[in-house]
């Protein structure tokens, strides 16, 4: 349970998709002019990440990893298909995005209209593929954690685009130097927000040192051994004494 909580906060704040690894910057910059569209796209990203990361985790675990095909039979145990992961991951993502598009069009035409051309672009949003690739690179151990990772990094992305959209709505009334207007100032603000998010870095590291009881020092181990030896010696002596009598 604790590792779920830790991963959740870590992916939202410390390894934030936008501020720490710059994923999904293209749509982050293009769709952040209005808060309402930003919210729509952010929600779509959370949803797609929550679906694709666990799916790709299953693919990675049972198809791609070194020796992952062992469940087919012992003769398959030597195969390592991990070089195919890019193509399989992106195919999964493209299919899922198509599905999300159909569902959104059916159930929320207004959202569909406001997102316009950006829904198909989620397929080529680096945040989505990046989520799956980081899941693979960080060797996330269980399906539950993979789902958690997908959702929480989606929330991190959502937070980032929401924040920048709100700032951009306000900054329209400020007197920004002409060459910086629009794109330039957005870059610099994102950089400053990234520096702000770096301060979350120490949030979870305070608890990283293992408790002392679980890892006894070598000196303690030697002492324990000596005590055991003494006890054994005493036993041997008393046994000999008894025998002698």
């Amino acid at each position, binding site marked *: 349970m604790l590792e779920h909580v830790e991963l959740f906060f870590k992916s939202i704040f410390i390894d934030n998709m936008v501020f720490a690894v*710059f994923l999904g910057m293209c749509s982050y910059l293009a769709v952040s002019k209005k808060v309402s569209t930003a919210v729509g796209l952010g929600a779509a990203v959370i949803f797609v990440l929550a679906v694709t990361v666990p799916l790709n985790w299953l693919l990675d675990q049972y198809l791609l990893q070194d020796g992952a095909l062992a469940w087919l039979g012992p003769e398959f145990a030597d195969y390592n298909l991990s070089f195919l992961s890019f193509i399989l991951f992106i195919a999964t993502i493209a299919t899922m995005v198509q599905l999300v598009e159909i569902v959104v069009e059916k159930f929320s035409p207004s959202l569909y209209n406001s997102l316009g051309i950006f829904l198909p672009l989620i397929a080529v949003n680096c945040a989505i593929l990046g989520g799956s690739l980081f899941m693979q690179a960080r060797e996330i151990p269980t399906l539950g954690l993979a789902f958690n990772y997908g959702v929480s990094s989606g929330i991190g992305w959502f937070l980032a685009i929401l924040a920048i959209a709100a700032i951009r709505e306000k900054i329209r009334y400020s007197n920004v130097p002409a060459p910086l207007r629009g794109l330039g100032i957005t870059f610099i603000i994102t*950089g400053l927000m990234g520096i702000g998010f770096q301060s979350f870095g120490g949030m979870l590291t305070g608890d990283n040192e293992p408790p002392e009881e679980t890892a006894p020092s070598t000196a303690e181990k030697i002492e324990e051994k000596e005590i055991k030896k003494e006890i054994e010696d005493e036993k041997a002596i008393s046994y000999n004494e008894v025998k002698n009598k």
Partner: protein
Amino acid sequence: MALLSKKDANLILDPLADNNPITIQVLGICSALAITAELKASIVMAISVIFVLGVGNVVISLMRNIIPSKIRIIVQLIVVATLVIIVDQVLKAFAYELSKTLSVFVGLIITNCIIMGRFEAFALGNGPWKSFLDGIGNALGYGVILIIVGFFRELFGTGTLLGYPVFGDPIAKTGLYATGYENNGFMIIPPAALIVVGIIIWVQRSRNKALIEEA
């Protein structure tokens, strides 16, 4: 330019400055920022993208009349993914350390918006030779920004270029460090890349007023 007609030359030269994919078209920023903390990684990334975009544009252009428009995105993704797998395997074979540094960002070339953007905007409507030039030009424009950012971040962040000390030795206090200069740790952290790109945009738009956005 006897080799290329003026129109063809513009295909290569335009994206280098006034139609730069990163600073003007706002494409392909994702991977541009994360790996620019050192110059070497930036150069390798630029070369990879030049290869993928040049070859990919030709392939898509050759297939442009037989791709059904409804599934074109998936076809494009498969073409890019195949090319990126080649790049990834070559890097792993010949530059293993570097491929560790780049980690997932090689894979993220697949979703680099420049590539899909050029496929959609150019390769689907033009012949192979022009598409090839357009691909090379845009990838070069991307590479130039990458190398500029990498150059400044490595120079001021660690005082080296491609791993060679430029400012002297920070521990023995030689060269520039003798005058009291310190490495700027700020340039190493990820958000610095955003600010450097922001400054590049600022400089570029101050020089060319036509690029300034309406408020």
